[in-house]
Each structure stands twice: as structure tokens, then as C-alpha cells.
């Protein structure tokens, strides 16, 4: 199929404003009379709030409002799910982590606001706290939420096939454990909120991954109708899953603005951003895998303990997703999984694509270990067990488009696997890992997207869509889809997006649906508009609508291209005949609505799945333990690339984020609930000097549901490259540290331990 705009590597529509410095991020905005907000945070990991005296702060000149959860918040327990409502966004009587919000000030300058914070006296009664998830699960551990015994937030249970029988009949059974520490999102842009509250409601600007997802909880927290909570479009500096949910800062900024009767802007410091919006989970996995002699993977039993921090966040999803991805990557049918999200007295943890590293790495590592024992090449192991189209997984997920085999073939060919595997010099290794990511999982009544299209007098189209862009290029993607469908050049398509006041509900950048669902809805709206355009143009051209096609701003009669009329003239002609052309469309994921993360993990849980294969080549210094990544190959099946350059951008970022950042560098260090390295200098954040060559490969399996065949754009790599590096380390030294990141110290410890055993 040859298209004009989709599939091409066109410059993104948002790039020029960003290159010029014109793009406005939340902290760049200001409104008349705007005040500056600052937040007072708990120094205790677990404590009752007995009393807060704000009188001295209120009397400081320049302070316009002081609020506390105790006095000013509406009692409201928020949760992503009805059964995870455990979060008072502005705590009233209990704090559960160091840094939790206790009071806030709005003043005429940041300096005055900060001075006012120091004048607020808070009386706490410290309570016992727990920081390690395995300790938190003990009977005698401090209780963080009274209704959750042993601090178990959720338990996801899967038991499919006959796992015990399959292990009994296996020719080879391997066991192991792996862990990953908690870490931080560290988005480029520190979090910020600007809120304006008046008699018509509240206007809010803040980084988000779905403004509609924030509007409903904010309306509950503020006690006003959802239609009066207006989140507006703003340029967003990255989210990576950590800005999907409503945040305490959102509620606090609104309450301050309401009390002060002026707009309030809160801008987080780097430490606040890294620690107090969401952190990223810590994870422990114990697993057992069974194989037949010929390499068929027949059984797996996994137990994961996820350190979720003090609140549930998207707990059921976070704990389930790594398991489900394994189930849609490999054809193993006897599976048992017990995933526990556990409360600890640390900041809450959100979703992140790389959260599964302590799940994915041991699975891939044990596939390689089995391959070694059984005398099978690791690539053959993946091909033998890897997913194929038409398969129905153990929990009933139907696989439609699946380009995994092609990804494996292309990635290993590019990486020159056959030339290198087993033939590299000492201290060198090459490793492979596969991934699969769901596109479109259940989100209840907010799981769909809708779009409208209107035309301007000059024939340009404007799309109104709830789609949100965190930097991954979603705005450009939707514009390209509509331009292609309508037959307009890309610069004649404008987008109004991510505004809850104007745009219909959209599921946000959740569950990897921006292309599939937001893009799909926009395509429906464009198709609807095109039908109406063709009705009008047909009369102008004395033809039938079904004889027409649109391209490059013109409507043609197919096979008679000299007979044409511009889209602009068609629009004007319509208006002259009292016809207003308006496109509308919506799209919902094709899923089993009875499937639920915890209560019923069976049935079609996502519309479709992307696939990918990561290959990494490394060299290791045996004296220092330092791992150097020589190159990474990232082959990903995105169905069809709406913008090939944008997909490559995502693949390169994913390979680096997964392989380098998470595989080798990032971890948070703690002392009794206090992060010690929540800033850039101490977090050990990699730079341009740590970025080896990445070779992105796009595979197109043409998904039947996605717009132009497109589905999720890169996450299979983000969720597998660290495993390819792990397998490459194993290839180089015959062992693997039992936790990430693979720092020199850990690698040396692993080598020493291995040498002792041998």
C-alpha cells in the first residue's frame, strides 16, 4: 500500500516550536496575579498528624493562603480501582512516607513561600515504619493500611494448565531468584502545576498522561462537577508512566488557588520530582522453569514481591503486566504466578515500562541457561517457544498480528549472531531477549477515544481529540493519520488536543493505545468527514462518491486524474449550499469486558500486542567488572509505522533506557525511608558518553485493528534490552549477578562467587 504521509519519516509537527524555544511547558506559563506555591513535607516515614499551627505563616507579609489537609481537604480516599482506594491525596491524619504533603503556602514570591513553610508548626506522633517488602509481609510488621493484613495491597494469582504435572514430566527444571531496586522516573521536566479557581470552576495546566484521567478524581477531591475541572493542553517533558494519575500537587495547587482567589503555580525541585510524584517499583522474583529435552518450555512458576510504597497507585496493573507480557511472548501453557504488591513506608510507585526488569531478566536468563544445558542455540530457543499469529494464550488472550519471528530473524542477522555467538574473544558476549507489549487493555468507561473534525474556510482541517503527547510524537501521529485519510498535506491539518473542556474523553497514554485507539478514533472521524466531502465533490464533478479519491489537497475521479476539485473549493461549495461538513468518530479496544486484573485474569485482555527482539553485544573488564555495551539491535513489530522516524526515535530511546539506564546504572539508595540520591548528581544518570550505537529495525505485521495496521510503537524493546545485556553478560562470563543494575561491583562479586563454585 502506498501512502502519501503515513509510513514516511516526516518531521514531527511539534518539533519546530520546541527547536525555537517557543513550546510552553507548565513552569513557563504565568497568569495575571499569579502566586507561587510551596509544599511542607513530612520528615517522618510513618506518623499521625496531631496538630498543625499555621498562624505564624499566615501572618507573614506576602503570604496569601496557607492550607493543610487536616483543615482544607475534603475527606476523599482516591484509588485507580474501586478496591484500591487508599490514598488521601492531601493527608488529613496520617502520613505514610517521608516527603508526604502536610501543608502548603501560596505567596507573592517563592522566597516568601519557602520562609512561610518554616513557620508552620506540625506536631507528629511517629509510628513504627517498615521499608523492606519482605519484612512488611511478616505477621508482626507495622501496619500501613488497617484494612490490608500483612501489608499486601493486591495479590494477582494465575494458575493455568497443570503446572505440577508439567514439572514432574520435564526433562530439565531450573530455579532462580532475581531482584531490582526501586528507582526514579527522573523525567527531563520537573513536575509543575498552574491552577486558577473561580466561580466557573478550575483551570489546570500540568504534565499528564491523560487529562481526562485526572479530571474525574480532581472533581471528587475538590467537590465540583467534572465539567468544571478543565485540564488544558500544555507541552509535557516526558512522563514514562509516572504522570498518569492525579497527584497531590494537583489538588494542593487547586485548593491554594481557591483560598487565595488568585492563580497559583507550584514548580517541583528535581528532588521533589524524582521522589514525590511517583517512584518506580522495587521487585523480587523467585522462579522455576521446566523444559523438555528438545528445548520446549513447558512450565513456569513465578512468585513476585513488588515494593509498591505507601499507596496502591496502579498496583493490580503493575503487578500483572510483566506476567501477561511473558504469556504473550512465549507459548508456554502451564503457568502459575503469584504477584504481591506490598506496602512499605516509601513514596508510592507508578507504572513504568521498565518495571519488569526483575521479572523479564530471570526468565530470559533461564531460557539461555536451559539452552546451554540442552545444547540449543539461544536464538533457536526463542524461535521454538516464541509467539506466532493465531495462538490463544493460557489465560485466553487471542494473538492476531505477530511479527516476533521476523523480529528475531532480522535482529540476529543485523547483529551477526551466527558469526559471533561462541566465537567472541574472552570477556565478550552476545545476548538475545524477546518482548511483547499489550496495546489497549481494560480501562472501563474511560477506555475509548473520540474525535471531531471541522473545516476552515481555507480548506484546512482541525481535529479535536483528547490524545496526549508526552514527547513521544502522538500529536504528530494523529495529524498524519487524519492528513492521510482526508488527502490533505500535513501542514493543512491542525490539532486541538488534550483539553478536557473541549476534547471528548480519551484514555490517555495508558496501555499503549495512543496510536491504536486515539489514532483509530481520529481516522474514523476523518473517514466520516471524507464521506461528506465526497458527497459534495461528486456533485461538483458530476460523478458518484464511490468513484472519488483524495490526495494532496485535491479530490479526484480515480482513473481520470485530470477531473478534480480542491478540498478547499469543496468546503466552500458545501457552505454555499448551507452544508457544514463535520467529521466524528470513536474507537474502543476490542477486549473481554469481564476480564479483571485480580478477580478474573482470564479472557482477551488487550486488543493486540506488539512484539520485539533485543540483541546486545558487550565486553567486560574482568579486573574491574565494568560492562561496556558495544552495540544494541532493536527490532520491533509496531504493526505499521505511522511515522518511521518517530518509531526509530522511540526504539533508540527504549534501547538506551532499558539497556544502559536500567541495566547498568540506575538505583535509589535509602536510609530508613529517606532517599539518599534523589537528584541527578548522585543518582548516577548516564550521559551522551554512555550511549553506544543502536540499530533500530521496524517490522510491520499489519495489525487488523490498528489504523493503517499500526499498534504500539516501541515498548517491547524497553522491556527487553536489559535482558539481552544480562544474557550477553552470561555469555561472556558464564554467570550473572542476581540483581540489576549490573554495576562493576556486582559483576565482580558474581565472578568471584562463580569461581568458588566451580
Amino acid at each position, binding site marked *: 500500500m502506498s501512502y502519501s504521509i503515513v509510513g514516511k519519516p516526516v*518531521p514531527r509537527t511539534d518539533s519546530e516550536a520546541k*527547536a525555537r*524555544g517557543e513550546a510552553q511547558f507548565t513552569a513557563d506559563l504565568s497568569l495575571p496575579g499569579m502566586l507561587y506555591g510551596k509544599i511542607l513535607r513530612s520528615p517522618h516515614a510513618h506518623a499521625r498528624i496531631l496538630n498543625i499551627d499555621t498562624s505564624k505563616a499566615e501572618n507573614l507579609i506576602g503570604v496569601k493562603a496557607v492550607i493543610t489537609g487536616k483543615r482544607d481537604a475534603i475527606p476523599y480516599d482516591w484509588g485507580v480501582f474501586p478496591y484500591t482506594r487508599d490514598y488521601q491525596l492531601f493527608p488529613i491524619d496520617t502520613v505514610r512516607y517521608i516527603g508526604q504533603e502536610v501543608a502548603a503556602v501560596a505567596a507573592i514570591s517563592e522566597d516568601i513561600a519557602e520562609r512561610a513553610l518554616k513557620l508552620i508548626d506540625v506536631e507528629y506522633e511517629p509510628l513504627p515504619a517498615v521499608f523492606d517488602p519482605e519484612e512488611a509481609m511478616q505477621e508482626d510488621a507495622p501496619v500501613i493500611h488497617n484494612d490490608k493484613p500483612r501489608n499486601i495491597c493486591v495479590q494477582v494469582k494465575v494458575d493455568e494448565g497443570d503446572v505440577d504435572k508439567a514439572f514432574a514430566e520435564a526433562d530439565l527444571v531450573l530455579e532462580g531468584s532475581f531482584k531490582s531496586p526501586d528507582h526514579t522516573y527522573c523525567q527531563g521536566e520537573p513536575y509543575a502545576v498552574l491552577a486558577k479557581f473561580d466561580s466557573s470552576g478550575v483551570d489546570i495546566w500540568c504534565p499528564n498522561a491523560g487529562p481526562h484521567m485526572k479530571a474525574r478524581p480532581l472533581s471528587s477531591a475538590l467537590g465540583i462537577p467534572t465539567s468544571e475541572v478543565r485540564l488544558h493542553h500544555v507541552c509535557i517533558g516526558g512522563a514514562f508512566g509516572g504522570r498518569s494519575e492525579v497527584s497531590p500537587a494537583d489538588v494542593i495547587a487547586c485548593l491554594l488557588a481557591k483560598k487565595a482567589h488568585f492563580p497559583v503555580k507550584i514548580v517541583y525541585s528535581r528532588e521533589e520530582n524524582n521522589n514525590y510524584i511517583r517512584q518506580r517499583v522495587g521487585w523480587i522474583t523467585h522462579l522455576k522453569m521446566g523444559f523438555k529435552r528438545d528445548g520446549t518450555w513447558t512450565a513456569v512458576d513465578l512468585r513476585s514481591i513488588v515494593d509498591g510504597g505507601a499507596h496502591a497507585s496502579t498496583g493490580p496493573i503493575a503487578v500483572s503486566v510483566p506476567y501477561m507480557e511473558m504469556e504473550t511472548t512465549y507459548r508456554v501453557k502451564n503457568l502459575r504466578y503469584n504477584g504481591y504488591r506490598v506496602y512499605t513506608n516509601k513514596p508510592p510507585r507508578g507504572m513504568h515500562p521498565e518495571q519488569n526488569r526483575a521479572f523479564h531478566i530471570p526468565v530470559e536468563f533461564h531460557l539461555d541457561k536451559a539452552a546451554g544445558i540442552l545444547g540449543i542455540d539461544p536464538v533457536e530457543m526463542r524461535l521454538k517457544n516464541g509467539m506466532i499469529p493465531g495462538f490463544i494464550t493460557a489465560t485466553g488472550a487471542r494473538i492476531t498480528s505477530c511479527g516476533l519471528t521476523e523480529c528475531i530473524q532480522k535482529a540476529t542477522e543485523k547483529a551477526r549472531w551466527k558469526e559471533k555467538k561462541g566465537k567472541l574473544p574472552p570477556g565478550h558476549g552476545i545476548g538475545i531477549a524477546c518482548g511483547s507489549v499489550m496495546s489497549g487493555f481494560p480501562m472501563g468507561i474511560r477506555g475509548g477515544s473520540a474525535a471531531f473534525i471541522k473545516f476552515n474556510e481555507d480548506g484546512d482541517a482541525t481535529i479535536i481529540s483528547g490524545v496526549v503527547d508526552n514527547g513521544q510524537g502522538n500529536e504528530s501521529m494523529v495529524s498524519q493519520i487524519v492528513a492521510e485519510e482526508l488527502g490533505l498535506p500535513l501542514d493543512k491539518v491542525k490539532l486541538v488536543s488534550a483539553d478536557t473542556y473541549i476534547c471528548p474523553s480519551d484514555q490517555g497514554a495508558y496501555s499503549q493505545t495512543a496510536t491504536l485507539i486515539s489514532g483509530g478514533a481520529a481516522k474514523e472521524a476523518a473517514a466520516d468527514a471524507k464521506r461528506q466531502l465526497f458527497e459534495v465533490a461528486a456533485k461538483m464533478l458530476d460523478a458518484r462518491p464511490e468513484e472519488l479519491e483524495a490526495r494532496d489537497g485535491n479530490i479526484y475521479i480515480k482513473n481520470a486524474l485530470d477531473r478534480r476539485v480542491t478540498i478547499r473549493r469543496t468546503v466552500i461549495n458545501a457552505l454555499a449550499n448551507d452544508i457544514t461538513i463535520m467529521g466524528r468518530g470513536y474507537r474502543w479496544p476490542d477486549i473481554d469486558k469481564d476480564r479483571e486484573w485480580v478477580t478474573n485474569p482470564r479472557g482477551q485482555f488487550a486488543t493486540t500486542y506488539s512484539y520485539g527482539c533485543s540483541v546486545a553485544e558487550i565486553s567486560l573488564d574482568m579486573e574491574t567488572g565494568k560492562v561496556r555495551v558495544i552495540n544494541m539491535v532493536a527490532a520491533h513489530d509496531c504493526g505499521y509505522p505511522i511515522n518511521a522516524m518517530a518509531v526509530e*526515535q522511540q526504539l533508540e530511546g527504549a534501547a538506551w533506557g532499558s539497556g544502559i539506564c536500567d541495566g547498568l546504572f540506575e538505583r535509589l539508595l535509602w536510609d530508613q525511608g529517606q532517599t539518599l540520591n534523589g537528584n541527578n548528581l548522585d543518582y548516577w544518570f548516564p550521559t551522551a558518553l554512555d550511549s553506544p*550505537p543502536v540499530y533500530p529495525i521496524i517490522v510491520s505485521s499489519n495489525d487488523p485493528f490498528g489504523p493503517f495496521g499500526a499498534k504500539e510503537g516501541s515498548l517491547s524493546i524497553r522491556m527487553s534490552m536489559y535482558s539481552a545485556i544480562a544474557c550477553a553478560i552470561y555469555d561472556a562470563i558464564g554467570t550473572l549477578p542476581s540483581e540489576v543494575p549490573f554495576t562493576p561491583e556486582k559483576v565482580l562479586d558474581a565472578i568471584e562467587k562463580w569461581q568458588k563454585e566451580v
Partner: protein
Amino acid sequence: MDKRIIRLTVNGEEHQVEISAKETLLEVLRERLSLTGAKEGCQDGSCGACTILLDGKPARACLVLAAEAEGKDILTIEGLSRDNELHPIQEAFIHHGGIQCGFCTPGMILTAKALVDSNPEPTEAEIEEAISGNLCRCTGYAKIVESIIAATKRG
């Protein structure tokens, strides 16, 4: 706090600004002059998002006191496109995919400009070294380096 009037030359234009002694150049650019292209990412000079050029050399506006910048030539991202025409480095970033979320972009482009002005045909290694103080969470730096190389070939 001590208030004084200073003269700042920003993007070829002179401004008279009343500042307090402790105000940083970043604060003055963003809040007094409404030049919000330079970003605040970290408050400790580690991220590079506030990078501007002082007499042609990259500097962390968050670590420069506004008063120190008096008498120097300050270039921000807003001053890079002349008469609205994009600088070749900006063009290259747009056409070669060097921009994702855009938060690091102004600092990154200015750092690249300073490099290319003093070293018109830098190697990949020289580019990586030059931009090693500009943190990017999105790209993995691959297309940023490609964009800078492409800009040098355009001249």
C-alpha cells in the same frame, strides 16, 4: 535584599533590569525578560537544560548570577533564529528527529552551536563529549548526535 539595576545584552538587545544580588541569570531571563526557552531542570547545574551562551561559550544560567552576566553577550534559544529563519542546527534537529519531549532541546542546541562554531567538523566522539553535560531522558542521544553531524554537513 540588595536591589540594583543592571544592563544585560540578550540576543543583541540591551535590557535594563532591576535585580536583587542573589538572582540568577536563569531567573532573570525567564521571569523578568519572559525568555522561557532556557529551562530549570535541577537547580544544581547537573542537567544542562538552562544552558545559554555567554560570549559564545555554553554556561549554566542557573549557576551564573545575573549581575555576573553584565557586560557579556548572552545568547538564548530565542535569539538563534535570525529574522524568524531557523539556524541550520535547529533545522537539522527538526529533520533528523533530534527532538522528542523538547525539554533538553534549547540547551542541547546551544551547546551544539558553541561546539560547531569552534570546531566545524566534530567527530561523533567530540560531539558526545561536548553534549555530555546535557541530560536527555527520551532519545538515548542517537538522533541528537546525528542531527549535529547533519548540521555540519549543511554548513
